[in-house]
């Protein structure tokens, strides 16, 4: 099983409930700034983009961590952080291409998405299924079928 968190940008309504439930579950309080994912908005252009940790296979955050606080967890195909080792240097924050690593201003350590140990709460509460936690093969097949549909439509239109 190789499951991953996926985003269908076209389905996001921008409600930010994912941020709300993520921060509540992780911190016992609602504060989107402390959530481990974010909906990036361009309000005036009607754009909402969910930004998540991609749990990279070759993760820049792991590579730059000087104290080996970050490591790959092959069981859940994720990158995990050991808070006891984290020195809060924020190299990983700088290195992450997606802005998915953040320094939590309350605990003063870097926090990141841990996929809720295999049951991501953001997915559970995403009303339109813009966020899904699915098998890699399934996700790729869905993506391919969606692309095929577009090709088909353009062929028929042509």
């Amino acid at each position: 099983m190789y499951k991953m968190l996926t985003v269908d940008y076209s389905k996001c309504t921008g409600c930010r409930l994912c941020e709300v439930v993520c921060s509540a579950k992780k911190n016992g309080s609602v504060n989107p700034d402390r959530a481990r994912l974010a909906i990036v908005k361009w309000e005036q252009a009607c754009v909402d983009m969910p930004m998540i940790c991609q749990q990279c296979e070759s993760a820049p955050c792991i590579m730059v961590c000087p104290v080996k606080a970050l490591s790959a967890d092959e069981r859940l195909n994720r990158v995990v952080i050991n808070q006891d080792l984290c020195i809060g240097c924020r190299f990983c924050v700088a290195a992450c291409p997606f802005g998915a690593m953040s320094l939590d201003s309350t605990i003063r350590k870097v926090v990141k998405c841990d996929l809720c140990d295999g049951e991501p709460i953001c997915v559970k509460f995403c009303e339109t299924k813009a966020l899904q936690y699915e098998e890699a093969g399934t996700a790729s097949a869905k993506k391919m079928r969606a692309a095929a549909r577009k090709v088909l439509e353009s062929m028929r239109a042509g």
Partner: protein
Amino acid sequence: MRQQEIAYVNLSTGETEKKPIPETMRRKYLGGRGIDVYLLYNHITPGTDPLGPENALTVSAGFLGGTLAPSSGRCHIGAKSPLTGLIGSSNMGGFFAPEMRFAGIDHLVVTGKADHPVYLWINNGDIEIRDASKLWGKDTVETPALIRSDLGDEEVKTICIGVGGENLVRFANVISGLKNAAGRTGMGCVMGSKNLKAIAARGGQDLPVAYTEEALRYLEHLLKLMRENSLLQEQSRLGTAMFQMMMDLIGKVRNRNLQRNQLADGQGLYAENILKFSSGTAACFGCPVHCRHRYQVPEGEYKGQWAEGPEWTTLGALGSEPDCRRMEAVLVGNYLVNKYGVDSLDFGSMYSWAIELYEKGITNETTTGGLKLEWGNEQLIYEMIQRVATRQGFGDLLADGPKRAIEKLGENAAYYNIHVKGMSWLHTDDRMAPSHALGVATASRGADHLRSRPGSDAHMLPPDQGEKLFGFALPGMTGYENSGKLVRWHELIYAISDALGVCKFQALYMSPSVVSFAEYAQLVRRVTGMELSAADLMAVGERICTLERMFNNREGASRDDDMLPERYFTEPTPLGPEGMKGKLIERDKYERLLDEYYAAHGWDNSGLPTGETLARLGLDKEPSRVI
């Protein structure tokens, strides 16, 4: 952990002050519209000029705003209204109120007047008054972008006024994002009078949850209830515009001002027509319903500009009322009213009134400044939105709202204006529905449906459901008996939605199977830890409604101000299916309904709360100036 606060800002002196909100006040008023009416009653002296510096403008987040309550993004804005001279009270969705809470502020009280254009910057609890000279004259689409650039922070949330508010249009609204509009009672006009262009907020503070696991489970439960509700499913697909088809078919739309109650070939305005322009639906904060379409203006000068909506209200105000039956035109008009920052309902009603007056020869081209007013003329609608917002020519007269425009045009004109307390009636024709008519007429803020409209009538529930839900038999769509009690019951639940800062579309407006007092009590306990029963919440609702009543009474309102427009008593509906056609409101029965409604609230027959009611609700010492 710091407590959420109320911030007081005096724009004349530049002074700001913050105070915590005592728990006793939460128990009595919760937050949002609840705390808001307390602040208005306590900070506005009777007789205050609504456009003077002494008027207080309040901006409030709900008690559950930005939390694990579904759809908790509502923002409430209050002041003494320049449109009605009574309570100003307006509510919108979006993302501003939660952001204000994350910045540590639940309520803002703004008094005074800045000597030049300014905006307020709420930055994690710090409040700064910033120069807005470069923002003055900008529309509601440009303004937020300029503020974000000024502050160097793209995550800032804003509320602002357009040129309508700057020009003191008495029904100017306040806009957040592209279309969230605190539309009613002219709160944008009050901001304009204070030289206050906008308020920006950004915060990163925690809103603690009392029982996280329980609250998450309960949220899941409520979302399931909402997801399984067929009306909400339809609303997710079509937006509130979904109501247009049904209401047109049963003859319940205002057409050609109030001359017809059904459109001739009105299919062009049915919500399905929006779908080909919609690029998907967007949601307010924490809302599973996502009821607004995103679209690009399909034609004309602003073709290609992004917009959201239209709500059914705007579709009716710019479509049904002036008899404009093409969806594309409504989509253009919707963009324009939001861009200029004027309330679509007041605009649509005033404009349709103007056309009827012109048609009847009560006004002429001299009055209108050369304009030939006619039904269905799309270009004229766009032109008049702009003229009203900038107060040019005839637009200047309409921009003053019903009361003042009537004073200028005379008694003949008065009969044709559909308003209550000086605020325009919405886009529905309610002559066949006594409970709806009564609710609109008794609404504390002037003619409005979102203070009490009993959805149960529209859904044609069997009468025995009334016993179960409310403790009395339902009057049905066209019945009188118990309408007063029904309106009062719904006033309480709507007041609670507004005080909690959640969207009332999740409450009983939509369906009896969704959220009611008991569920809200559960939510409040899980999220805030405060133990309140369903009965306690009903009492909060009563307190809010009664204090609003006291605000209006103190400004000189009386039973006369709860009367329907005269036409409701004299002209029967000309169209519609059997049961809806030939209907008007019978005057004597309406008077009895008013008595029933007052009695249900514990007010006497002049609409004054009795001493016993004041004591029971703990309002006998107001104004008490606790906060």
